[in-house]
């Protein structure tokens, strides 16, 4: 795992100002992720899962330590370089889907590709392929308000996968879904992980998600307390 690590975190500390004092959200975290992992950061609320995910996605920066993503130290990236990293190499899936409400399903998925200046025909091909992965080719013209929660999250998955990123960061992706939808979504992501060898990292405390994970990293009060490989995970 260490040899082909695409994410390497060393001595990561993250502090947030709280009034005149500081709150330490991550305390000396050391972990790495390899290509094609299907891993989860698990732990109770406030354990630092989302913070760690945000730092890996270069949406936030470390207070101390190093976070190397695809060979790039996120602390040293400019805003523009961070944006390029997110646009080309990292996909995000959020608990509340974060779809753009005035855009259709097709346009939501297409959005990331528009930023890459891809030609129209290439974009169309890529968007339709992504929608096919998640089984939503018939809903291309629908607006997010016309979709169920499960469908919205599928659109979010398609949007994160359309650019074929090396890493997908999913923050509580099943928290707003019922059991059946959660399993469908997880199965879809698992398939994509297998087919495209994309690294998936989840932040979750959902038992359903954990059953699918190959690796579970438990966080408590900002510290990694357990890092387990799960050979018996689903599929």
């Amino acid at each position, binding site marked *: 795992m260490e040899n082909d690590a695409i994410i390497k975190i060393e001595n990561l500390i993250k502090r947030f100002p709280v009034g005149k004092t500081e709150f330490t959200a991550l305390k000396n975290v050391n972990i790495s992720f390899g290509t094609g992992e299907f891993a989860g950061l698990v732990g109770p609320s406030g354990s630092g899962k989302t913070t760690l995910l*945000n730092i890996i*996605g270069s*949406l*936030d920066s470390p207070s101390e330590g190093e976070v190397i993503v695809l060979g790039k130290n996120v602390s040293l990236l400019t*805003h*523009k370089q961070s*944006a*390029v990293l*997110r*646009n*080309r190499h990292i996909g*995000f899936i*959020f608990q*509340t889907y*974060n779809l*753009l*409400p*005035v*855009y259709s399903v097709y*346009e939501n998925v297409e*959005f*990331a590709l*528009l*930023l890459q200046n891809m030609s129209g025909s290439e974009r169309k091909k890529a968007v339709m392929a992504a929608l096919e992965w998640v089984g939503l080719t018939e809903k291309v013209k629908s607006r997010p308000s016309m979709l169920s929660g499960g469908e919205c999250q599928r659109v979010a998955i398609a*949007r994160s996968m359309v650019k074929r990123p090396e890493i997908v960061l999913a923050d509580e992706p099943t928290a707003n879904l019922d059991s059946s939808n959660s399993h469908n979504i997880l199965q879809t992501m698992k398939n994509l992980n297998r087919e495209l060898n994309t690294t998936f990292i989840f932040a979750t405390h959902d038992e359903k998600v954990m059953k699918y994970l190959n690796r579970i990293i438990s966080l408590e009060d900002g510290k990694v307390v357990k890092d387990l490989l799960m050979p018996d995970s689903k599929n």
Partner: protein
Amino acid sequence: MLAFKLAFKNLMGAGLRTWLNVSVLSFAFVIIVFYNGMIDGWNRQSRIDTRNWEIGDGQYWHPGYDRLDAYTINDAHQVMSDEILSDVKNKNLAPVLIAQATAYPLGRMEGVLLKGIDPEQIILKLPSDKLKPSDDHDYAIIGKRMAESAKLKMGDKLLIRWRDKNGTFDAREIEIASIFKCDVPNVDKGQIYLRLDVLQKMMGMGNEATLLVAGNGFQTRNLKNWDLKNSDFLMSDIDRIIQAKKAGGSIIEGLLLIIALIAIFDTQVLSIFRRQKEIGTYIALGMTRPQVVGIFTVEGAAYSILATLLGAAYGIPLFMLIDKLGISMKAARTTDLPVAEKIFPYYSFNLILITIIIVIISATIVSYMPARKISKMKPTDALKGKLA
């Protein structure tokens, strides 16, 4: 290009909110164009009328003449040289002799200016051809305003009394040969037009004139003992009035524009607070902060583009109708300003272009101001929708 595409998409998606802002802004846009068109139309019309009825293509004044000082009239007259008379004959110059007099309409007494004018002149629109020569009658023409104030009509006789060049009082009865309708009060109010030769004789000022009006065929040059007054000088009063009107109008236009811009500013501020998650999502998907600021700024600017289109949609037919019917200005005709009964607004390309540019630039600025806040927003807070 992407920013424009996304901004228009977002605006269309915002539905009624967008159209309310666009309607207010388009109203301001149409009013600004209309008001300026009215002023420009009036300006154009009054300049044309003043040129046609009063000043021609410039004037030559006796050096002692001052149109704003009645005391100068008595001494402001001189003999016209052969060179001038030749231009008069060729209808390139129209001499005018001015004298003060008292008229007695219906037994009342009224101070008037007598103006002697060549009946054959064609430079001014005055119907001087109505001043027929006659041995037993002295014909005069007056304007409608003068006729109304003195209660005179065609064919009426009017007693006038004046002092000739030697200071001797004389009086005679004149007959109103024609009443002309003119939009320039300076040509009309308190003025009686006689044949030049008749007035010269009455005043004992043979072959003399107070001023010479140049026609468009006249080669502008210096005439000995005459002061050239060009159109800019002669129209300076109109220019000042128009400028004052424009300044007054710009306050109303400014207020209208401010109301529309406040609506856009308000919408943008609200948008930025309500759409924090969207902003966070844009950043998570790989947009840079300046790109997101760009989207919001272009969104604001796009209001002005839509307002221009909407304004054109109802403004063009409305303006065409007004252009056909004109705007009645009867109330303004009681003033001393040259105002036609109807004003036909004049919309120049420059006026429309400048108004569009002002509206777009102001809308862009007021959209950029709240959008700058995005660049200070932390993406993680934006994604959570935390109010900053």
